[in-house]
């Protein structure tokens, strides 16, 4: 298990969260007050900052110059550039479900009359089928509404102060640091 507690009592992970700017302002101040007095944490934070800066300067390896030409030749030879025709209209999925349902009912109509089972069983099977169809229909309708709503909704912005009071109470933090 990774050691997370520092000798001064501060959790190592909190320095990372602080560095990412993920603390709420109140906790950020507590960490800053601690770091201002703790040489060990100052040093750790400085090293972490230096590491981050140096990391962004690591060179990214580049592919060979003829990479695109060779890839395109291979893709053309393997037929990867031919896209299947896909209907993207709103009704396409409804039509697909309707097609599958029709096929299902046709199959049931072909097979079920040929199966010899007692009348009462048939009644029960009929009721179960009816309920199943109703539930599936309701589910499909809800799923389609949810998908439509999700497509219209903009992506939420990542929140600042993710690790705020309920997750890391300032009081608990202050107590842990012996203040």
């Amino acid at each position, binding site marked *: 298990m990774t050691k997370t507690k520092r000798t001064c009592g501060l959790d190592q992970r909190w320095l990372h969260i602080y560095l990412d700017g993920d603390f709420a302002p109140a906790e950020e101040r507590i960490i800053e007050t601690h770091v201002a007095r703790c040489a060990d944490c100052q040093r750790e934070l400085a090293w972490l*900052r230096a590491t981050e800066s140096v990391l962004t300067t690591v060179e990214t390896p580049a*592919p060979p110059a003829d990479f695109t030409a060779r890839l395109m030749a291979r893709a053309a030879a393997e037929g990867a550039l031919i896209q299947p025709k896909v209907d993207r209209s709103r009704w396409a999925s409804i039509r697909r479900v309707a097609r599958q349902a029709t096929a299902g009912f046709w199959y049931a109509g072909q097979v079920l009359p040929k199966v010899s089972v007692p009348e009462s069983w048939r009644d029960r099977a009929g009721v179960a089928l009816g309920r199943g169809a109703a539930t599936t229909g309701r589910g499909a309708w809800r799923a389609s509404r949810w998908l439509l709503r999700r497509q219209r909704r903009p992506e939420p912005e990542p929140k600042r102060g993710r690790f705020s009071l309920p997750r890391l109470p300032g009081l608990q933090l202050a107590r842990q640091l012996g203040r």
Partner: protein
Amino acid sequence: MEWTDTRLVSECRQGNEQAYARLVDTYKGLVYSVSYRLLGDSAEAEDAAQETFLAAFRGLHTFREGAPLAPWLSRIAHNYCLRQLHRRGPTTVSLEARLADDLEPLAQRVPDPVPTPETLLERSELGAELEAAIMALPARYRTAVTLRYLHDFSYAEVAESLDLPLGTVKTQLHRARGLLRKRLEATWTEARA
């Protein structure tokens, strides 16, 4: 007219070969970089990048309209490379990464002043050491580090690329940053000795 991701995808779907080539040109650096950092070999990385683009071309009709291409392509490359690593069999345990853990108390006993990033960069051996340190990280951290620091992805984009919860990605990056920091300090202390 600018080649946005949406336009690229739409033109590719219509069979425009120029759009395919442009898509490759735009993202080959990212895909190759992710593959190289995971596989550690340029020939294998090139193969992986090619397979990634071919898989992307074949799956383009399933791509969600309006979504960014970079996380999707990174995810395909990451998954392909993980499969390749799995095929290679069990990986050797990085002793260096373990050593870095043990170096902490030594560094604490001899507190040298922390150098500035500029001073660190002046030491040419540190660049190579950092490269080696990235390669010594566990595979699941390597892609996260590559995307975050080398390609400037946000945490949310890294999470989308790796198909992991945001919190998991943050933890992985924090651990990776901690390991790299220890390695960097150890190298710096050695270089000064």
